């Protein structure tokens, strides 16, 4: 009565085939990550030390540490965040909470999507034209950071919007029906419930900004500087560009140096991502609805 028919056998075989196929593709995915991390640790791990992180490069960048580049990256990312986060969050709040669905917001929407699709080298040239030359910031941390800020703005806007959208509409209704204005609703109910998602988006943006090279190499990052930046109007070294330089532009660099720089860079990004994931899990565990 309930015996297996030949059709059942065939369907089961096909089902198994796809399961194995998809599983193998998933495994394929993580192989590059393992190889990259493995290679970096194997080849660059030996150079990582306190001195490597906290001293200047010496001997025409063939020896010594990476402190100016490390510091420069932190500078650039921090200033970029200061610019893009308030702007991006404000835009996302406007789009999600105030603006209706009309041609105007749709054009803005389209602009944001296109902004996200612009190649980073184009952003770099825009940065040179706009910030370095037009606004007269020169090649500086400020120009580099603003270029990065514009590049990452879509990420902030989209992720913030997603988190705002995840706040149930019923909460807003409840507020409005008690006579709350839009702003009271946003400040007291929507933002507190969206903050975990917004922060996660920001941290992901940080990790992305950290590794960018093209947008900063014409706008503010220098090959080599004998001094640390004193203000946002100075140039600075940066990890990503430093990696490019020691890997391809300077002769006589010991093998483990570029790998060490890459390892530090990727460690920064991974650290940031891990924090973001941990944070998200913590906040998600706290909210209940």
């Amino acid at each position, binding site marked *: 009565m309930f015996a297996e028919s030949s059709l059942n056998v065939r369907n089961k075989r096909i089902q198994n085939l796809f399961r194995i196929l998809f599983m193998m593709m998933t495994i394929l995915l993580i192989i590059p990550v393992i190889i990259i991390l493995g290679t970096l640790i194997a080849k660059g791990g030996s150079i990582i030390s306190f001195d490597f992180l906290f001293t200047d490069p010496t001997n025409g960048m063939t020896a010594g540490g990476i402190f100016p580049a490390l510091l420069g990256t932190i500078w650039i990312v921090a200033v970029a965040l200061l610019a893009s986060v308030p702007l991006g969050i404000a835009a996302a709040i406007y789009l999600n909470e105030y603006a209706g669905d009309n041609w105007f917001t749709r054009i803005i929407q389209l602009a944001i999507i296109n902004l996200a699709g612009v190649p980073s080298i184009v952003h770099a040239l825009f940065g040179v034209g706009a910030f370095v030359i037009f606004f007269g910031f020169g090649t500086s941390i400020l120009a580099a950071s603003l270029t990065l800020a514009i590049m990452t703005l879509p990420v902030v806007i989209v992720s913030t919007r997603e988190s705002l959208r995840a706040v149930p509409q019923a909460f807003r209704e*409840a507020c409005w029906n008690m*006579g709350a204005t839009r702003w009271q609703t946003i400040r007291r109910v929507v933002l507190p419930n969206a903050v975990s998602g917004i922060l996660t988006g920001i941290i992901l943006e940080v990790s992305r900004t950290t590794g960018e090279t093209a947008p900063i190499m014409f706008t503010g990052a220098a090959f080599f500087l004998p001094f640390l930046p004193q203000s946002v109007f100075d140039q600075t070294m940066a990890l990503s560009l430093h990696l490019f330089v020691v890997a391809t532009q300077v002769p006589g660099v010991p093998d483990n140096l570029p790998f060490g720089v890459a390892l530090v860079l990727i460690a920064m990004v991974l650290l940031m991502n891990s924090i973001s994931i941990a944070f998200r899990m913590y906040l998600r565990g706290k909210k209940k609805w």
Partner: protein
Amino acid sequence: MQAASVETIENSIPEYAIRTRKLNLWYGTFQALFDVDLNIRNGMITSLIGPSGCGKSTFLRSVNRINERLGYVRINGTIDVLDKNIYDPDVELVQVRKRIGMVFQRPNPLPSSIRENILFGHKLHAGGGKTSKSDQEEIVETSLRQVLLWDKVKDHLNKKATALSLEEQQKLCIARLLPVKPSVLLMDEPCSALDPKGTAAVEELIWELRGEYTILIVTHNMAQARRASEECIFMLMGKVVEHQLTQDLFVTPDKKETADYIEGRYG
């Protein structure tokens, strides 16, 4: 319906909390309400019954002007709440929402503590002025007592409101309207998400609030209308068919449509 003209306005409390005159409402080109003329008595529980799509919820939602948020809603006629047409241009929406509270089908407490839920409306309308801790405690206690919830939750006011049972959540949603002293409470099928026990408890509460507030309640449940309201309005296809004392409407309806509906011939 008794003639309103015999009652002269002797004191400041009007006899009718809500009066509509020639109220017509369109969603785009679809007309949902036709010449609705209703006088809803102050301090009484009035229920609105009728089959789905008869306009009872639409009517309810135009009494605190939340319909207009949809954008494509057009209204003419007047709705006087406590003798003031709320569609007059000089009416402030925030004040309308403050005086006319609304309870929804699904309880919608805010995702914060019980205490914060109760104080939310109060804080909204209190302006920048700080309310002292003891005043806040008093507001919380009074409101929760009014909805018969105090004894159950007094020991965990800091608990998340969303962790309460649906019945308790619905009571909380009613309680949080009270600190700003509304005159009218609109309830859109307040018990339809609740189990029979919760329904009975919320009905009991609604009955308790009678007198102090004018309550307009939309319900699908005829037994509920019969149990928990003093006057009853039957609507059909956007029109008011009959408005009577509840006991009369269910025993000796004037119109054939009403009789058919309450006997369950359609719905």
